[in-house]
């Protein structure tokens, strides 16, 4: 009992409504150690840490710092006890400089631009950061922003640092740099809690591992006494096969081809630069790249939501550049994009599942007016009248102002049944469903239209392992049915197992296409960071199919 911990949690619980985000959690942190907090998505890791940093207030339980009970009811309290948190979604002011962001907040010593710049540089040097205090945040890369966040916490005198999924947005090489900084901080006597669900990182950096599952504390183990397999079992609660099926299919002709595509981002910079690739029917093409490397812009360009600057997109050999999103969808190109907040694109949150089903095909409903048939032996005048009447009838039919709820409800019921969506009814607003169910509804609606090209971005974002596997199953089913699938993902391990080929993007440039069974994470990591450019190395243009469906007349502007 003699040992006092730097930080101790006892019987902490937190409820959101009737849902327990954390239930009876107790663990402790020693001085100068790196503790990994491991758990699946939505297992309550972030909620727990938010209680330490004063964003949430625990409903039950006690927190001890240096053996004394403390109450942390606001972020100020957290800083008073030298606890600082780096949030997963950076909390930085875009229009401020790095230094301004760092000195933000009460306390500190006045506000002199030159002095704070010097202080920031001093901290950066001590731990080996690279930072320019005068740079505005909106000009920074993701890893620079993260550096600012960490320096901000250090500047405020934190001894306990909480890093929430710091590696999610970094390349493997940047991650290594972050880890060396973390080791330097540990050597300086700081204690670090790192939240993650990546097992190999846990093994690489941490001293001890605490595991959460569905809001409950499972246990704490010494890192060097455990293995990835054992940790997975703790995390998931049962023995799981970490294998994703990759069904063998016969690859069809290229169904979607992209040639020399250039697309601009919202800010006006090039988001996609000179990209060529193709997808065959019955194939899953993975797209790997760190966040914000043009994935979104690529999806939008294919779906017709974003202007193509130059280059061509061909569906079954026909150019679809400049077509409206509706026309493209009618050709059988379906897109499901799961943004970070999950609801942003594709579904209207406060509308019911039925209504959301209708968003896609509301205009297909007709009155059902049939044209009058010609009769033998009519006078020419009567014939002309009938033809005019038929034309009017067809026009009215096309512009039917009513929607068809009945069939939409049937579709909703089909999606609910087939994809096992848990919802009280088809009329429940989508907003009230849990994240996984929302994603199933979105994916289900896109699949219902029987697409021949399915573009899906981050379909398993924020899902637990079981739901993720269900989604992989759905994708594989489409693949067997002969659809070409563009799978934009985050987790390289998953992509290596699920996809047939993987295309790597680095700042909008294609670094090459590799067969998933002939590559490894190291190679992909180097390509993601831009250190390895297969397209250049091989010296021949990649991403052009030999049996291209595009005609020889050179309809694209090369």
């Amino acid at each position, binding site marked *: 009992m003699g040992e006092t911990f730097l930080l101790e949690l006892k019987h902490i619980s937190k409820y959101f409504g009737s849902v327990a985000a954390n239930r009876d959690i107790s663990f402790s942190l020693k001085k100068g150690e790196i503790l990994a907090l491991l758990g699946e998505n939505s297992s309550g890791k972030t909620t727990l840490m938010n209680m330490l*940093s004063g964003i949430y207030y625990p409903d039950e339980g006690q927190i001890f710092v240096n053996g004394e009970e403390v109450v942390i009811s606001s972020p100020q309290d957290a800083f008073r006890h030298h606890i600082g948190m780096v949030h997963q979604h950076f*909390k930085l*002011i*875009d*229009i401020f400089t790095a230094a301004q962001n760092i000195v*933000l907040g*009460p*306390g500190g010593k006045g506000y002199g631009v030159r002095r704070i710049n010097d202080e920031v540089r001093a901290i950066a040097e001590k731990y080996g950061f690279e930072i320019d205090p005068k740079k505005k945040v909106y000009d920074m890369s993701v890893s620079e922003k993260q550096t600012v966040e960490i320096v901000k916490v250090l500047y*405020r005198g934190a001894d306990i640092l909480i890093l929430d999924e710091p590696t999610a947005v970094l390349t493997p090489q940047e991650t290594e740099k972050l880890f060396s900084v973390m080791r330097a901080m540990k050597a300086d006597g700081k204690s670090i809690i790192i939240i993650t669900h990546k097992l190999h990182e846990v093994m690489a950096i941490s001293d001890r591992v605490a595991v959460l599952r569905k809001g409950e504390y499972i246990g704490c183990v010494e890192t060097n006494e455990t293995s990835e397999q054992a940790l997975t079992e703790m995390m998931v609660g049962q023995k799981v096969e970490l294998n994703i099926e990759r069904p063998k299919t016969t690859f069809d002709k290229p169904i979607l081809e992209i040639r020399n595509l250039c697309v601009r981002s919202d800010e006006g910079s090039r988001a996609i630069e000179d990209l060529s690739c193709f997808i065959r029917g019955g194939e899953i093409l993975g797209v790997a790249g760190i966040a914000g490397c043009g994935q979104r812009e690529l999806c939008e360009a294919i779906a017709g939501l974003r202007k193509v600057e130059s280059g061509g997109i061909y569906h079954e050999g026909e150019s679809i550049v400049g077509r409206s999103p509706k026309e493209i969808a009618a050709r059988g190109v379906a897109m499901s994009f799961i943004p970070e907040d999950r609801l942003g694109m594709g579904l209207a949150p406060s509308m019911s599942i039925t209504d959301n089903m209708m968003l896609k095909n509301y205009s297909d409903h007709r009155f059902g007016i049939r044209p009058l048939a010609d009769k033998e032996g009519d006078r020419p005048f009567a014939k002309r009248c009938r033809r005019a009447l038929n034309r009017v009838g067809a026009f009215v039919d096309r512009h039917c102002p009513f929607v068809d709820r009945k069939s939409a409800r049937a579709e909703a019921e089909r999606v609910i049944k087939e994809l096992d969506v848990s919802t009280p009814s088809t009329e429940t607003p989508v907003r009230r469903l849990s994240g996984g169910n929302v994603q199933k509804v979105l994916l289900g609606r896109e699949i219902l239209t029987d697409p021949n090209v399915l573009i899906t971005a981050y379909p398993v974002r924020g899902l637990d392992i079981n739901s993720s596997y269900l989604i992989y199953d759905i994708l594989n089913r489409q693949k067997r049915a002969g659809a070409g699938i563009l799978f934009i993902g985050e987790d390289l391990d998953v992509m290596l197992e699920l996809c047939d080929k993987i295309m790597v993007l680095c700042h909008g440039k294609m670094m090459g296409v590799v067969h998933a069974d002939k590559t490894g994470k190291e190679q992909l990591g180097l390509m993601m960071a831009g250190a390895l450019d297969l397209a250049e190395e091989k010296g021949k243009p990649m991403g052009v199919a030999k049996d291209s469906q595009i005609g020889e007349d050179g309809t694209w502007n090369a």
Partner: protein
Amino acid sequence: MDNFLASAISFGVIFLFGCVGEILTEKSGHLNLGIPGIMCVGAAGGCFGVRIAMSGSDPSGVLVVITGILFALLFAGALGAVYAFLTVSLRSNQNVTGLACTIFGAGFTSFFINSVVMQNGADSLLAKAGQQFFGAHIPGAGDLGWFGTIFLSHGVRVYLAIVIAVVAAVVLRYTKVGLNLRAIGESPATADAVGINVTGYKYTFIVGGAAIAGLGGLCYVMGYMNGVVGSTVDQTIQGIGWLSIALVIFTLWKPALAILGSIVFGMLYILSSRITGISFVQIQLLNLVPYVVTILVLIVTSIVGHRETQPPASLGLSYFREDR
């Protein structure tokens, strides 16, 4: 020409009060469309204060001015506090709340001035206060030629407005309070995470901004109109209030620019009454110019899209810490 510029400045400071008040409010992330009503209430409160101070047998000029200002601050601040309570604590929709404040403020002012303040010969008392005390300027300013006419012939309200605008500019740009306030307007969640008292800041600057805007109303009645209070004064001030909000956009949320902008708006506003021999329609068209200029500024800043000239990022959004 000298007189025209002097009038433009004299009128422009009414906008300046409203504009600086609204800038401070907007920097905290709240779009207060109640400013026109708050300026009305400021005028009502100011008149009430002046009326009380003038009721003695030999009122002191300084006392009358200070009482007027204090009551204007108090009344306008009170309505600002109502707005702050509704939008900060109860997180109601800012636009709806603001419009409600405007409607309430104008109606209250019309009632209060006509039925409470303007009784028992108050109009002559107010006129006297306006001319003698609020209009008092540095003696001999008229002898200094154009410089004196333009810059020195004004009552204390003009210099007060400029001092407030300069102080606001310095606070926003060079102090930690300003840095924290701007952070709240950009991203309250970020500000909260570093331990800034978001609610406290929001209340302070919404109420403070409203109080400053309220001085604009007083400034119109006692300063520009020399204490002559018409029965439809609330409508005129409301019009000025909307222009003040437009001026915020025109000056790109910068109080220092607002000093120049308010003089420009002052010129445009009084232009139609200074040009003789034009038709009624032409007068109306001239009165449109400030709005057209504001729209042009909006178009230009939107096209240029420079990050620093955009409104605070979380303007108009409610903030709740445990929101998920």
